[in-house]
C-alpha cells in the first residue's frame, strides 16, 4: 500500500446521509474477480440522474468526498472502497461511518475522517469552490479560509496509512504468539478444532474421501 500523509484538493460537497454500499457500488458490479475497474460503476444510480454531483465538471477527479451521517452502511463489500479508489477518491469526510466500511477504506489507503456535523456543514459550503486539505501528521482538516478542524484517528490505522504497512505481513511475524494461543485452545477448549462437515452432504470435501 502507498503511504498517505496528506490529501489535498477539490472535494465533492455532497452531504448525503445514510449512503449505503449498494449506492456506492450496485451488486451487479460485484461479479468481478479483481479489484480494478470498479470506478465505472461507482454511484451508478446517482449518476443516472442529470446534473448529479459526480458528473459536475467543477468537481471532476476530486480526491475528497464530503458526506453525511452513517456513510458506507449496509453490505460489507470492499468493492465500495475499491470503487471509490478507482474513481480517484482517497479521503471521505463525514459525521460517522459504518464500522465495516471504515475498516475497508483504511485497508485501501482511503482516509475516513470523522468530523462533527457543524464542521461538515462548513466544509460543504467552502468546498463549493475551494479546495480542502486533510493532514494525517497534524490530524486536521483545513481550508484556504483558515478553517481548521481537528479529528481523531485510531493510532494503529494512522500508522498503517502513513507508513503504507502490509498488515498481513505484520501479523505473520507474530506467528509464535498465534501458535502459542492455538496450543492453549487445544488444551482448554479441545472441541474448538471442530468436527469436519458430514461428507455425504458435501459432494466434495478437501483432502478427505
Amino acid at each position, binding site marked *: 500500500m502507498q503511504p498517505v500523509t496528506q490529501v489535498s484538493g477539490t472535494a465533492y460537497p455532497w452531504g448525503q*446521509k*445514510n449512503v*449505503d454500499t*449498494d*449506492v456506492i457500488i*450496485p*451488486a451487479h458490479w*460485484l*461479479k468481478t*474477480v*479483481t479489484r480494478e475497474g470498479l470506478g465505472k460503476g461507482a454511484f451508478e*444510480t446517482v449518476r443516472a440522474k442529470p446534473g448529479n454531483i459526480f458528473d459536475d465538471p467543477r468537481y471532476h477527479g476530486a480526491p475528497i468526498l464530503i458526506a*453525511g*451521517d*452513517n456513510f458506507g*452502511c*449496509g*453490505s*460489507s*463489500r*470492499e468493492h465500495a*472502497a475499491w470503487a471509490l479508489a478507482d474513481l480517484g477518491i482517497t479521503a471521505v469526510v463525514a459525521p*460517522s*461511518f*459504518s*464500522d*465495516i466500511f471504515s*475498516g*475497508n477504506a483504511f*485497508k485501501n489507503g482511503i482516509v475516513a475522517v470523522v468530523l462533527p456535523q457543524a464542521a461538515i456543514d462548513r466544509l460543504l459550503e467552502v468546498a463549493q469552490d475551494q479546495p480542502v486539505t486533510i493532514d494525517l501528521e497534524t490530524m486536521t482538516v483545513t481550508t484556504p479560509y483558515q478553517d481548521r478542524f481537528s479529528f481523531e484517528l*485510531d493510532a*494503529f490505522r494512522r*500508522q498503517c496509512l502513513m507508513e503504507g504497512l502490509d*498488515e*498481513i505481513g505484520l*501479523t*505473520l511475524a*507474530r506467528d509464535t*504468539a*498465534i501458535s502459542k*494461543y492455538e496450543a492453549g*485452545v487445544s488444551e482448554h*477448549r*479441545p*472441541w*474448538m*478444532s*471442530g*468436527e*469436519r*462437515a*458430514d461428507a*455425504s*452432504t*458435501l*459432494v*466434495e*470435501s*478437501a*483432502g478427505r474421501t
Partner: protein
Amino acid sequence: MSSQPLTLYEKIWADHVVERRDDGTCLIYIDRHLVHEVTSPQAFAGLRANGRSVRRPDLTLAVPDHNLPTTPRRDASGARLPIADPESVQQLDALKRNTREFGIDYIDAIAAAQGIVHVVGPEQGFTLPGTTLVCGDSHTSAHGALGALAFGIGTSEVEHVLATQTLLLSQSKTMEIRVDGTLGFGITPKDVILAIIGKIGAAGGTGHVLEYTGSIIREMSIEGRLTVANMSIEGGARAGLVAPDDTTFAYLKGKPMAPKGDDWDRAVAYWRTLPTDPGARYDRTVTLDATNIAPLLTWGTSPEDVVAITGTVPDPDSFADPAKRDAARKSLEYMGLTAGTAMQDVGIDYVFIGSCTNSRIEDLRAAAQVAKGRHVADGVHALVVPGSGLVKRQAEAEGLDRIFVSAGFEWREPGCSMCLAMNPDKVPPGLRCASTSNRNFVGRQGPGARTHLVSPAMAAAAAVTGRLSDVRDLVTA
C-alpha cells in the same frame, strides 16, 4: 483473575486475545471462517501473489450462495444444468478452484448441505457459542443468535484471516437491547427487530456490539433469534449477541459439525459460563416493550423507515431533522408513495419469501399457514426460496412445498435469490415487492425496484391479497 462482572461480549473478547498492542489494538483469534464466492476471489488471489497459505483450512468452510440461480440445478437425468451468466460462472468456478487449491471444505451447488452461508453455519453446527466467527458478508451478525461473536468483514480482512486466522481489532462498546412484554398474535421475530431498528435508527448501533436480552428473546427459538441477530447490522452494529442457553444447546446437539461425546459435555460446561454476569455494565441500554407491537413493515429506503401495517405513509414534514425530511421526500418519490396513504391500500407486484433473514423452516411454516387454501392474487409474482437444501428437504417432508405450489407460489432452489439482485431473481424497475429480506435500499432488489420489508407471514398475506395486508385479518389465533 479479576472478579469484576463481565458482559458476554467482554468474556468472548478476553478469551480470544492473542496479543495486545501498546496502542490498545488487539490481535484476536478467529475460530470459524465462512467463505462464499463474491467476496473471496481477490483474497485468494492476494495469498497466491504473496506465496501465502491458509493457516487453518480446518476452521474454514466455503459455500456458494449469492450468484446461484434458484431455478433447478439438474435435469431429469440428474446431470448438472449450465448457468447462463458467464460472470457468475467465473466467480463460482473461482470458489471451487480456490478451495481445492488451499484445502478448504467446499459445499457444492448441488450438495444437500448447500444454502445461504448464514443458514448453513448454524444448521451444520459450524457456528458455536463463545466462538469468534467471520465471513465476508455483513449479515454474519446472524450467528450471534447462538452466542458467537460474529461479524462481517471486507475482502482484505478475509485474506488476513485466511493467512493468519486472526484480525487486528479494537474493542467495541456494548449496547443491551432488552425486549420484554408479551408478543401479540401474529407478531414475529421480524417485527421485533424492525421495531428495534425503528427505535435506535440505522446508525444507532455504530461502534457497538449489541446484546439482545429480556423475556421475549429468551422465549424465542434459535430460528427467531437468527432473524433478530441477522439484522443487527441494519441498526449499524457489526455484531449482535444472544446469550447461549438450553434452547441453544438443544438446537446444536447432534448437528454434523457440533462437538460430540466428552467434547460436547466440556463445551456445554464452558458455554454455561458465558452469559453476562449480574451487575455487569453495558455502555448503553435500550428497552423495548413488545406488548403493543403491531405487524411492522418499511415504507422508505432505509431499514429505520418502519411503520405499523395499521398506519399510513408518513409526511416528510413530520420529521424534526431537516436531513431526514429531505431523505424522506426522496424515499417517497423513489417508492412511488404519497404521504397519508394507508399502508394497506398499497398494491404489490412481487413477493419474496427467503434470504438469510427469513428462509428457515419456521419462516416457511409461518408463510404456509397463511398460504394454505388460498391463492396468490392475479398479477402477483411470488417466490419461496428455502435457505438451504436441508431446509428445503424438511419443508418438503412436511408438505409445505405442495401448499405453496397449489397456492400459486414458485418453489425454488436455495440461495440469496431476490435479496440483492446478483442473480436472475430481480424485481423489475418501478415494481413493488413485499420481501422478507433485510434491506430496502435504493436498487437493492434490482434497479428501480421498490421494497417493503415484512415478516414471512406478512409476505404471504400480501401475496394472497395483492396488497400490503395485516396478517391478523387472515389467520385466527
